[in-house]
């Protein structure tokens, strides 16, 4: 079950090797994103598009806000 994270959790997870995934469209990602994030828009989220992510490390997904 996915766990919720706040910004402190994200910082800790990144220090531990976490991988960030922004699921917003490419244009929004290009404008600004968290450092080191991968861009996999939600509509493109498939087994193939996530194949490059390391399954042994935490994955943190985010969009713009909670809405």
């Amino acid at each position, binding site marked *: 079950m*996915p766990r919720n994270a706040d910004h402190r959790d994200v910082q800790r997870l990144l220090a531990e090797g976490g991988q960030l995934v922004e699921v917003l469209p490419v244009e929004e990602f290009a404008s600004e994103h968290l450092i080191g994030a991968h861009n996999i828009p939600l509509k493109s*989220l498939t087994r193939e598009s*996530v194949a490059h992510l390391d*399954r042994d490390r935490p994955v943190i997904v*985010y969009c713009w806000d909670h809405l």
Partner: protein
Amino acid sequence: MSPRAAWRLETFGFTQVYDYVDGKADWLGYGLPTEGDGASLPRAGGVVQRDVPTCRLDDDLKSAVEHARAAGWDTCAVVNAAGIVLGRLPADAPDGVDGQSIEAVMDVGPTTVRPSEQLADLVGRMQHFDVAHMLVTTPDGRLVGILRRADAERLLLQQHHHDHHDHAGG
């Protein structure tokens, strides 16, 4: 959007999936680092004065006003023990000689902005409403500092000259 993505990743066999529910808006709101085409735009967090006078609700009003003025400010952020902004002493706050409390004279619920606020937009609004300074807080209401419009205008002017120089030179 991110909850669906998180669940979907689990169906793909990922076992350590986290949903940063508050997302990029929250990250920016805390002034945390980003990259991308828009990441270099000047923001409130880049010009905010962090060493600013603060006082508590039960502090002595006269002392708070004197302390703020001695530090070169005509305002003081009223915060609780956790640093959450409760109000602001206005520039025309009485000096407390008549025994009034901070709570009685403070502005309750002053307008605040996040460190991520883009400076050009913010300065435009401050000029329109003739606001000299603005409290800057994190998304959970914690005081970051006070932004002086004059500082922000100076930074934007420098940026404009820098951009113009780059353009002319390139």
